């Protein structure tokens, strides 16, 4: 995405300003959606009821939830449109697409955790964990958007859909919401804040910058492509222990 930018020796540009803004938008809309949605899903819990009353009633909570839903849907549609448009026009490669190598990377990393491998898997611009998170949220987001619309306007949708689709939409909406919430609350928050490598906060998505050292550790394939060298060469220079475990896939984003 963003062009590499030499800020001293160590800093590299990873995200453009638009992506930083987009992330802020997603934070805002999802925090509001989770707060106003989870209290509706777990309405029988005391704290949920406390929150609803603090928000001055369930009608307000639903209204805010729907407004945030509209904002989220707008962000989602814009994101898909830009991604599809960008790829179609060749401005960037399909770096988020899931590849066969991602599964191998996952197996490799688990072996590494158990001490069966020497080093972490060599990843491209996005590693398999980031891809998993991205796609579950993207697909989940589309699902939430659709089912949310059905729940918002049930009489409109039952003109074409069977009546049973409303409780089905409710089941999907609330379960998928919980799934996305858990991915965010456990996985994303760990990786971005509590992971020993990121603590106290992985600032890349807020500043757009990443250190070359981290690029080398986490995204060596992309770094090699940026610097125009082979992965083995790059790791040979910067990372003595590291050795190439797989051939370099097609080039990442310039």
């Amino acid at each position, binding site marked *: 995405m963003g062009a590499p930018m030499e800020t001293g020796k160590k800093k590299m540009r990873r995200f453009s300003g638009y992506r930083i803004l987009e992330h802020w938008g997603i934070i805002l809309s999802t925090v509001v959606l989770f707060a106003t949605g989870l209290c509706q899903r777990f309405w029988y819990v005391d704290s949920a009821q406390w929150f609803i*009353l603090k928000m001055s009633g*369930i009608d307000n909570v639903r209204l805010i939830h729907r407004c945030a839903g509209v904002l989220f849907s707008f962000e989602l549609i814009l994101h898909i449109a830009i991604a599809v448009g960008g790829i179609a026009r060749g401005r960037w490669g399909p770096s988020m697409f899931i590849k066969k190598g991602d599964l191998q990377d996952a197996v490799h990393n688990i072996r590494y955790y158990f001490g069966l491998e020497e080093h972490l898997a060599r990843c491209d611009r996005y590693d398999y964990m980031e891809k998993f998170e991205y796609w579950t949220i993207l697909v989940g987001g589309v699902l939430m958007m659709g089912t949310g619309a059905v729940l918002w306007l049930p009489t409109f949708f039952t003109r074409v859909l069977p*009546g049973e689709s409303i409780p089905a939409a409710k089941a999907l909406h609330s379960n998928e919401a919980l799934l996305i919430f858990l991915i965010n609350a456990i996985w994303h928050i760990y990786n971005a804040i509590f992971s020993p490598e990121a603590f106290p906060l992985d600032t890349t998505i807020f500043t757009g910058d990443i250190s070359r050292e981290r690029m080398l550790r986490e995204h060596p394939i992309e770094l090699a492509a940026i610097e125009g060298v082979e992965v083995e060469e790059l790791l040979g220079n910067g990372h003595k222990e590291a050795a190439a475990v797989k051939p370099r896939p097609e080039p990442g984003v310039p």
Partner: protein
Amino acid sequence: MKQGMKLILGLAVLLMAAASPAVHAGDAELSAESLKCLQCHGKKGSFFKLANGDSIPTYVNPAKYKVSVHNALACSRCHTDFSADAHPARRFATRDQYRMRASAVCRGCHAAEQIKAKPIHANLLLREKEGISSICTDCHDAHSGNPVAGGKIIKSEKQYCMSCHQHEMSMTCRNNEKIPLTVEMSTAEDNAHDKLRCSDCHYGFSSEEHPKRNFRSRRDYTITASESCRRCHFDKYTKTLDSVHYTVLSQGNLSAPVCNDCHGSHVIHHITRGVKGRTITTQKCRKCHPGVYEVYAKSVHGNALFNEQNQDVPVCIDCHTAHNIDNPLTLEYHEKIPQMCGNCHANPAIVSKYGLSTGVLNAYLSDFHGVTLGLYRKQREQLYKPARPIAVCTDCHGTHNITGAASSDPVVVKANLVKRCQKCHKDANENFPDAWLSHYKPSLSKYPMIFLVNTAYRIFIPLMGLGFVLQIFLHIWRYAVNR
């Protein structure tokens, strides 16, 4: 010695007891004059004609006269101018005129001071000052002349009061309505108040006191009389203060029911348990709510009560309660409805024998409408926020006209349901009611699509969470090892 004394005392008491009726009734022979008069007047069938065409029987019961307090008096002592030889012709316009004249004769011997000694007479004498004349023979038989109790010894207050109130009498209100004062004492065993004295309810009245009361109307009297119930039934009385009936009454609608209207006055039954009692209560409500009663009687509940003597079905008071009846048109009442229906429909002991699901209440409460209803109630209680009405049981099933869904044509049920939905969801079509899963919890046999979605997530979400947590621990562990 002591034994002897006791015997003598006992005999003396017996003797006195035997002697007392003789003293009271008198045993004297009738005078010659009286016997002569009775030769004609002791026979039934002759009448004295009044000027207005009315007639008075001239019959005097010789047996009663013989034992009366006036038996020693000759007839002419009261019927002056009459004797064995003289029988002058008299003319009276009306029966009342005759009776007033006759009463004046009594007063010749019984002076006002003597009569006044009894409070009931004192009141009557007061009325005379207002121009209302008292007629002795209204209460005292003319020729037996006994005390109003009929010569019996009065043993109880009730007996005392009944000695007058067994007779036909009435009180006139300011609006000229008459209140009958005749009391029909129940001899039935189930009279709940058979141990009470009259003055327990009619406080202020006794053998000594008989205050004068003046009511605007008969209804006013009934309402005032109901106030006396609270002296014993204070718990019920305070409940009625919260009822819609009391609210309506206090707004000036005197037709609103008070205690007496449902419970009666002098004949108050014990609560009857079982179908009979439950049926009786519906009849009380029917008096004022006949329309609702008719609808109820045709409903699945009413039909079972009246035709099958079913004890499980609700009667009026099961939903509306008996004393603190809420206004059913308020939101507060509306909010209580699911719990009301749930009292039976979530109770396996009641509904399972009819093949009905007991899960309906929970299914409702955890669905959109039920959750919203619960939150609206909390909002109203804690934020004083007026809530909007939201569909409860009766909005879809009806209230008094509930019919059984199983016995009806499914097409009709669905068509009716669409109409119910459209009350709130204006543009709902025939697909829309299917969104309601007939209160069933989704399962493989009922609504499998929803069941499978839920099950899939129920398996996948914990697995995924577990995977994340494992990976995090492995990550931290490896990080620690590397250091």
